[in-house]
């Protein structure tokens, strides 16, 4: 495990602010947002360019070249064209300085395990709390441990099963031609949950969805992906997908997020 390296003075970075730093010969983007510091690899996983020159908006940094957005707290890829998360690092603030410790990546000589819904190209990096780095011998006033929030990075499949959770899980299913998820495309007409009689605590899910056209060639794949995404939740006993063609899908069913992604304004 690498050591913490001092990268900047707290005063160097306004809030909100961003800074390119070098840690152990790696390029890292350091952020200061809402009182906390975050560090991620300064590499857009889409085209390998730097992120730090992009626009910082809340906890999101947008790649200046193609607009891929990443969560600075977790490194998660939030929008196309990036589909893989960039690496998030551990940060602490001590004695007025910001320290970064690189996390191991990419075990070089072994298979790399990817958390989250790898089948859909997204991996969810979960940050861990940094309580283990707090040195108890330091005066508490001088020691401020920055906890890297994990709220946004909890996989949907670990949420309590409810309609919203199902919709979150469905966001992992993407139209293979448009690369936009089926929820934002407006393909989901309804989600119904009902208790399973023979398996207490489990629920069966019925999803009413449509296709952008009746002869959609991606139909079977979308149905299979939908079943797999929702079926991954431990409390789901069965998933049924009902294809509904009436009312027909129209482009105005898309959310603004989908429009943005497709470049329709």
């Amino acid at each position, binding site marked *: 495990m690498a050591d913490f390296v001092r990268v900047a003075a707290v005063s160097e970075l306004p809030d909100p602010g961003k800074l390119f730093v070098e840690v152990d010969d790696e390029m890292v983007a350091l952020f200061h947002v809402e009182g906390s510091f975050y560090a991620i690899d300064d590499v857009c996983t889409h085209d*390998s360019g730097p992120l730090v020159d992009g626009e910082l908006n809340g906890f999101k940094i947008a790649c200046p070249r193609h607009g891929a957005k990443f969560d600075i707290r977790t490194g998660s890829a939030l929008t196309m064209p990036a589909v893989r998360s960039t690496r998030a690092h551990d940060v602490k603030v001590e004695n007025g300085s910001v320290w970064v410790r690189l996390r191991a990546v*990419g075990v070089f000589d072994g*298979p790399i395990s990817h958390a989250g819904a790898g089948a859909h190209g997204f991996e969810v990096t979960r940050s861990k709390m940094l309580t283990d780095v707090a040195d108890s011998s330091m005066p508490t006033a001088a020691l401020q441990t920055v906890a890297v929030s994990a709220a946004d990075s909890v996989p949907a499949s670990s949420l309590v099963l409810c309609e919203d959770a199902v919709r979150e899980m469905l966001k992992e299913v993407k139209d293979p031609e448009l690369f936009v998820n089926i929820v934002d495309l407006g393909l989901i007409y309804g989600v119904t949950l009902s208790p399973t009689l023979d398996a207490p605590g489990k629920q069966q899910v019925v999803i009413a969805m449509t296709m952008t056209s009746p002869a959609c060639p991606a139909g079977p794949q979308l149905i299979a992906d939908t079943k797999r995404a929702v079926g991954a939740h431990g409390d789901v006993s069965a998933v049924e997908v009902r294809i509904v063609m009436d009312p027909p899908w129209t482009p105005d069913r898309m959310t603004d997020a989908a429009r943005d992604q497709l470049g329709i304004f």
Partner: protein
Amino acid sequence: MSTATARVPTASSLFDRESLEQLLFASKSATDSLPTWVEERRRTAFERLQSLGMPGRQDENWMRTDLRLFKSQAWGPRPATAVNALLPEGLLATAIPAGDTTAEPFFEETPQAVVAPTLAGRMLSLDGHVRQVSLDPTLAQQGVLFGSAEQLLADHPEIFEPHWFSVIDSSVDWFAALHAAFHTASAVLYVPAGLRIAAPLHVLSAISPGGVDTSHVLVVLGADAEATVFTETAGGGSVGSLGGFHCGGTEIVVGPRALLRMVNLQNWNTGVWHFARQKAVVHEDARLQWTLGALGSRLSQVAQDVALVGRGAHAQVNGVMFTEGRQQLVYNTLQHHEAPECRSDLLYKGALQDRSRLVWRGMIKVDKCAQKTDGYQRNDTLMLSREARADSIPGLEIEADDVRCTHGATSGRVDDEQIFYAQSRGLSADEAARLVVAGFFQQVFDRITIVPVREALARAISSRIRRVS
């Protein structure tokens, strides 16, 4: 001073005016008379260097190269190391005397010189200082010029002045200008018209850890001449240390109907920054077989241009790359057809391990007059890990209307089923991976007709493959 003028931020380094004057002073004392044109070309390049900053991402050739960890101010000319300093060994240098050195036929329609089992000449340099020069005395009698540039440029301006830093464009970016101003330990070769040299000539540029190499290579083949030239690099520090810095250039002129086999092997340690600009000019009915091998360096940025300037010129370009760790290699190639009925054929193959990155951006440019052009370019990459990344960007720019130009690129991972099958036949996963990688490179090895070069590359790659993940 209140005049506000828009200025490009210039890059600072220890390659400054003072070190340029020291370099010129040293050259003048080393040779009887330093030709003024050599000095002037250095000074012109230096003025250009002063006006330039680091290449930025808005430049198409540099947009995939991250130079933020490159510290220009850390580098400058290095004093000569102790005479007894150990010279890092080259891969080709060790392969030549030991191996079977017969060359297989290349361009079969011509009579073939047999590559003799010894070297015709050798030049070794360490940290930008020449350590050893030798040339077969028979060849010297026949008019072959080979060795350290300074004296030969002074003695034979009629041969070298038209080409010296005229083939490559030294004004194009900071590194090109730096190289043209501060080149040292440069090698030149001239083969007179009609002379066919069977044995290869070898140039090894080495650095010690943290060292600097700015060597230049100029090869001029007269009409109907034939030669085989190996240039290679070795040494430097590994990643995490200061590493090393190479900023070099290669100029090649292949006279009418001449045949040149050129091999450049880049085998620095993994901490070395490598910047190189290489260009060959191929005249009518001349043939060039140019093989690039790249195994080392932390970051490489190489421009490799071939200009086919005479009717019927033919160039074959082979590239073999293997990257690992966090290496990043960027190649920009150009096959420029400036005359009719020329042929160019480029094949780059790369395998990537760990988190390494390989970028190839190739262009075939066909001028309006270059009818009946036959141009091909292909780049194949094999990813041995999930974290590796390869970018292949082929391009065509054609102004003539009667040409055949094609290109292709493939990239992929090792097929798990092939590994599984090999394991079912009693091979370990590692052995199976080596076999698959060897098979992948076979296509380009088949084109490298110089046996010891092919074997040295195959051995070096095989020893680097760890495990496919």
